[in-house]
């Protein structure tokens, strides 16, 4: 840990990560970041009712169905993680 980190919020990175799942670090890859983005997005859609209503109209689905779909998609929003390249 750097000296400069001692005073700010990053001083407790582990704690931070635990509290805010979406925070990242220098070794985050594209997939992990995208998963966080997707989950945040779905959470946001579900959380904002007008947005949900908008999607419902656009997709011609009930609002409840939309909500359910979004929740389901949050499980594996980007599919399975890609194979690790070992290097």
């Amino acid at each position, binding site marked *: 840990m*750097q*000296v*400069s*980190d*001692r*005073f*700010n*919020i*990053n001083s407790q990175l582990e704690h*931070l990560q635990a509290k*805010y799942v*979406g*925070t*990242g*670090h*220098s070794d*985050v890859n*594209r*997939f992990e*970041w*995208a998963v966080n*983005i*997707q989950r*945040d*997005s779905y959470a*946001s*859609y579900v*959380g904002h009712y007008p947005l949900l209503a*908008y*999607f419902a*109209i*656009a*997709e011609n689905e009930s609002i409840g169905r939309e909500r359910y779909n979004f929740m389901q998609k949050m499980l594996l*929003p*980007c*599919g*399975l*993680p*890609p194979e690790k390249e070992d290097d």
Partner: protein
Amino acid sequence: MEADRSTVDNEIKTSVDERRNTESVAPLSSVTFDSDLYEDNRFEGYVRSIPVNEDEGEADGDAALLFRRRMSSYTGPKSLIDIPRADGEDDSGFKKPSRIIDREDEYRRRRLDRIISPARNDPFTSGETTPDASVRTYADVMREQALQRQKEELLKAVAKKHEEEKSNKTVGAAAAAEAPVAAASQKRRNRWDQSQDSDSGSATKKTKSSSDWDAPDSTPGIGRWDATPTPARVGDATPSISRRNRWDETPTPGRLADSDATPAAATPGATPAGMTWDATPKLGVLATPTPKRQRSRWDETPLSMGSATPIPGVGTPAAAFTPGITPIGGVDLATPTPGAINLRGPMTPEQYNLLKWERDIEERNRPLTDEELDAMFPHEGYKILEPPSSYVPIRTPARKLLATPTPLGTPLYSIPEENRGQQFDVPKEAPGGLPFMKPEDYQYFGALLNDEEEEQLSPEEQKERKIMKLLLKVKNGTPPQRKTALRQLTDKAREFGAGPLFNKILPLLMQPTLEDQERHLLVKVIDRVLYKLDELVRPFVHKILVVIEPLLIDEDYYARVEGREIISNLSKAAGLATMIAAMRPDIDNIDEYVRNTTARAFSVVASALGIPALLPFLKAVCQSKKSWQARHTGIKIVQQIAILMGCAVLPHLRSLVEIIEHGLSDENQKVRTITALSLAALAEAAAPYGIESFDSVLKPLWKGIRSHRGKVLAAFLKAIGFIIPLMDALYASYYTKEVMVILIREFQSPDEEMKKIVLKVVKQCVSTEGVEADYIRNDILPEFFRNFWVRRMALDRRNYKQLVDTTVEIANKVGVADIVGRIVEDLKDESEPYRRMVMETIEKVVSNLGASDIDARLEELLIDGILYAFQEQTSDDANVMLNGFGAVVNALGQRVKPYLPQICGTIKWRLNNKSAKVRQQAADLISRIAVVMKQCHEEQLMGHLGVVLYEYLGEEYPEVLGSILGALKAIVNVIGMTKMTPPIKDLLPRLTPILKNRHEKVQENCIDLVGRIADRGAEFVPAREWMRICFELLEMLKAHKKGIRRATVNTFGYIAKAIGPQDVLATLLNNLKVQERQNRVCTTVAIAIVAETCSPFTVLPALMNEYRVPELNVQNGVLKSLSFLFEYIGEMGKDYIYAVTPLLEDALMDRDLVHRQTAASAVKHLALGVAGLGCEDALIHLLNYVWPNIFETSPHVINAVMEAIEGLRVALGPAVILNYCLQGLFHPARKVREVYWKIYNSLYIGAQDALVAFYPMLNDEGNNIYSRPEMMMFL
């Protein structure tokens, strides 16, 4: 004469007997215990326990009280004393390191008597396998404990027998002695009577011949000599029984030490001191005739330990004749036996150390028991032989010691083996950058000084070395050393292993010369290590407890907290089963100290692991049939749990009460007492709930208060006192009336503890809802005042407080008039402490309840009394009188008007007094009553007082001057600027020079007064005067006290408002050039405040112009002012943002870090101020200048930069910052990525939801869907 002769006879006979006894071989049967080895009452005369009553246990209050009590002897303004002084900022310098042992009392010092027991078996790791014989198991420990108890009981029985024997004789002797004193004529007849009457005089002779020291074949138990009914003692029967008892009780050789304390040694045999000879002859007789021993002993009064103590080794003639520690015997000879040390009264830590060390050794060298031998040897092929019949074990300590080959065996000089590496007496330069070693550390860290090669050591030893080095660094090192060492210890804890670590750490904690700071550090080490070792600590739990438990009763609050934390962590690491197994044997330890600390430790375990987990165990312990100590401790644990956990006991209240309730009818008095106290603690913790849980104990408590007396009764009363407030009004009233009879009876008790408890209980009962005022007035008050409102109560601080509290509580029920009417006369009492107590009570009562109850007559008496008490006070603690006066006058309000002239007369007269204290009090009183004077429309009088005070502004004593200024301020506040006499224009010039005064109180009051005038009446004073004051004020910015600096800075604002900002600003800007940082900071704050009060546009041009001065401090000062300015003016900043942007641009590009840092913080405040006000263009421009600074590493700079970015996020929205961020999140260089992710994280935390709309579009990759089609939907 006759008595003398018989003394001598007796003496001779004694020595003859003794010689005969020691010369003959002692047959086993008659050998009594070696009381100098097994002597048991080392703690005789010590307090056996911390008082159980009152706030026992809750040491928090105790410590505070102690502190206060100690502080009361200090003189100084109370306002200063109440400041918590522990904070490191104390500019008086560093706190002197204090040794823990120096502030401990005897009881607490007993921690050093405990032995760090060997590690124990951990049944969890060993599983099914039978533990190795060398490991101590729970069973072993319990067995030892039982043995210890048996021994103790046996010794007690023996001692008791002696006691009885003796008291029989003493009674007889006393009877004989009384007679001659009574009348001469009777005397002779009495003699005759004696011979006829087998009961008295002759009985002595009879018992004498029958006592077993007379028996030819018996070795005299040392105590027997005391029993000798010497005629001398008959003649000298005057000493009080209690004193005699102390001498006679369980005789020990160690008692000898007391002999030099008794001056009446002129006729040795005739004084009780003579008895102490008993110990000497026994050993000395081996070589010398008794009389000689005696003489030498008394002649060489300043004997040092060596010979004054009956060290067994003294048996060698050479040693016996060399008083003091001679080089012959070497260090070992100086080692006194434990008992001997303990009785010598205060001892040095070194002695403690020796003692502890010796006990430790003793423990390890204890003879092997049969079981242990069985375990060691194979069962087959060996046979246990009978000892030969002629074998007699050596039981006499002297011979035992002689038989052992010890270094002191030869009194001759032997050439010591040389080890050039070891020079323990010379503080040697510690190798390898190790910190300085204190002399007492050599014992522990000495090995580090040996120059032996590291490579030659075994891995184990190397590890040990390493631990020692780290510990030494933690203990004595500089903060950085300490830090790294602590980290290493923590990181490698498991690698080092629990055993080696604790074996090094724990003895250090037992070091008698330990200082607070060192202990804190070592405890910290334990805490960290515990965390890492986790279940590996199990075998060491008891060891750790031995060391940590004493912290629980330390007088220092933080030490107690630390102790609790460690024990709590320990119990979490080791688990309940291990904790119970470790502490169970201590529960019925014979030593009260051990039991006390164990109970406290158990309560911590309960709070760490939850009460329910401990309940079954507690239940079993509290019902222990084996010993009352176990029950006592079990119940005490419940008490401690209640104290420690407070209302958290509520869910388990019923079970806790059930567990202990049978203790109320226990056969042992101590158990009954502690049970009642525990119930009191539980009720106190549960208040105001949980009465139903106490239903079952009400009856026994009730019966108890009728049948018990003394200490037990006090405890029972306390329990009832705490239970009554939980009851419904109806019951409470009933029970109060019932208990009151007994309370009133106990009002007269002379016992201090009882008094305190009675007061407390009365307070509790009276404050309960159902108790009627009439009842209190008629039934309680007369007795209460008669017994408690006496002078003596004012002398003890705790009584005083309790009495005041109780009386105030009563007043809350019965009203002001009753109480004040009863005590008002006492304001004129001749005892000052008593007057003070009365005053304090009146103050509290009146400020609680007002003065409307007080009729005209009482009012007169009251004012009269108060004036008298105020004038007569002599003590330093003036606040009580002042507060009392203030409270009463304020409560009476307009009714004081008739008395005001008299009061003011008194004040005026006292303002002129010779004593500074009196003057100060008078001035203080003015500030208390100024408001009331205004209410009474006595403005003229106030004006007059103002003039008088004005005349006293030349006061020399700063304390008094401060008070005078305070009084003036009070008057000015009340009557306003226009009506003030002397007029403001005269007053202020007089204050200007006083601003130079460096005394804090003067400064504070003066700046307050000046600030008040600048605020309200600036127009009365010419501008030039204000400028002069401005210059003085700059000096005030150096003040240590923050309040003064704040008042000063505000005053700048007022003055600038009054005379316009230009001149003030010029002064302030000039002040930016000074060197001192605090001064500059305050100046920048003042500039910002001026800008705020006089609108920024009046200040900004000059300020920005000042930035052109090519001087670092000035530029930084300007930037800082800007930062403060934008913070203060908030959204007003939108009008100035375009004006300052070029300046900030320049600053953010400056080479100097501080420029960029300060500019960044200015940007932050600016951005936060103008958020949402349409200044985005300027802000983005600024962001472009801020952004390159994100790679700074200096902590303050990077912090400021990050905060600026946060501020800009708020003003610009997260999208902008995210876009800046995206370029670096996946940068090839890790260093870059790290910084960008840091920014991203704080951005994310700040605007998680808002970011959803702005995330970049990612393309799908193979099976992975990264796109967000929902974002593309469009209606």
